[in-house]
């Protein structure tokens, strides 16, 4: 039996932060410069009382409604987030109840960022291949904007909030998830970090002040150095050539970085999808947003070979082929 992606939906907050808003907030920042380098014109911003849990619930309900999926069908729910509403309990457990899933489902969270969707697919694939589940609901959601200080122009320009829902099912035919490749370099843990966002901050006795910090040049170098090798590894593992790939869906970090990664990896513009203009960098949700848009446009079917690759905070990378 194969593990196949059979449905993908996503949800982004209605509230937007546009480039015009940013230019008004930070004089000297030009509209052309922001959209030209980042490829982003607006980003979704979660309301004050809207968290990753609520966004994931929205995406999941949309998936169930759009694809007419009965909640009873789900055997497992995996929730990937780095901005949980609660440190405990597990978000996936709350979502099991809110979505009306059976009690005898497997439910757990994954704490990963931009590589998180690929890791979550890997976990779903493992549950199916080991016979523990036939139907796995993979949810991703993040509200990174709540971690960003209002004065941090660089990060407010890039990140947007959002959530996705993907159904992975045991099928004889369909868009099959193939083998995975991973790369981790924890030495770079402080290249993208919210230092006071966990227990350290809670126990400090101080009110949390948004403190997400990104050392852009070092993350950029990490991706330039590791992604081309990871791509080669994935291709070799599947006996594929670059020309066999119909679409590359990389984590949508920013269009400038993606453009250079495309060049370093040797893919054509036609193969390489950049689709983040109206959502920004949505962390673990960026890949399923692109995937959902391609599926909706009927550009992906079982005849297509697609390379999925996530990279970022951790530092962590992961990739796979769907075919």
């Amino acid at each position, binding site marked *: 039996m194969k593990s196949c992606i059979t449905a993908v939906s996503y949800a982004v907050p209605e509230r937007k932060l546009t480039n015009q808003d940013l230019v008004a907030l930070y004089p*000297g920042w030009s509209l052309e*410069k922001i959209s030209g*380098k*980042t490829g982003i014109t607006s980003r979704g911003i979660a309301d004050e009382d809207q968290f990753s849990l609520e966004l994931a619930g929205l995406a999941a309900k949309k998936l169930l409604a759009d694809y007419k999926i009965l909640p009873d069908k789900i055997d497992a729910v995996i929730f990937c987030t780095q901005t949980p509403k609660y440190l405990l309990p597990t978000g996936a457990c709350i979502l099991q109840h809110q979505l009306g899933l059976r009690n005898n489902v497997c439910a757990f969270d994954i704490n990963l960022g931009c590589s998180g969707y690929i890791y979550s697919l890997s976990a779903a694939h493992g549950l199916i291949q080991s016979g523990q589940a036939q139907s796995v609901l993979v949810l991703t959601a993040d509200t990174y904007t709540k971690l960003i200080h209002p004065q941090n122009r*660089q990060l407010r320009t890039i990140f947007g909030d959002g959530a996705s829902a993907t159904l992975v099912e045991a099928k004889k035919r369909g868009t099959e998830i193939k083998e995975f490749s991973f790369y981790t370099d924890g030495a770079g843990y402080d290249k993208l970090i919210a230092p006071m966002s966990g227990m350290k901050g809670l126990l400090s006795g101080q009110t949390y002040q948004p403190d997400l910090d990104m*050392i*852009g*040049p*070092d993350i*950029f*170098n990490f991706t*330039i*150095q590791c992604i081309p090798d990871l791509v080669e590894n994935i291709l070799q593992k599947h006996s594929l050539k670059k020309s066999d790939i119909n679409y590359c869906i990389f984590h949508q970090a920013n269009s*400038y*970085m993606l453009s*250079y990664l495309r060049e370093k990896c040797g893919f054509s513009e036609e193969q390489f999808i950049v689709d983040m203009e109206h959502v920004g960098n949505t962390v673990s949700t960026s890949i399923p947003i692109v995937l959902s848009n391609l599926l909706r446009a009927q550009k992906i079917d079982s005849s297509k070979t697609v390379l999925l690759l996530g990279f970022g905070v951790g530092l962590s990378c992961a990739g796979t082929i769907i075919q």
Partner: protein
Amino acid sequence: MMNDHFIREFSSIIEMSPLKINDDLNLKGLAEWDSIACLTTITLVDRCFKVLLSNDDFTAVHYFRDLKNVIAKKFESEK
């Protein structure tokens, strides 16, 4: 080691005439020398010299001469 191509490309990053690029140019004092300019400079240096500049390298860059020096140093060390 700085050729015309590099100077021309770098001048477009900081939105300045190539004629105004000299050793004493104070990059830290330019509004255009921002996070996006740093990323763009990384790719330019990688393309031209096959070396990667880190965040620490950028921290040490105040003037254009500092940028030249850090590139030269990295280039030599990776030979």
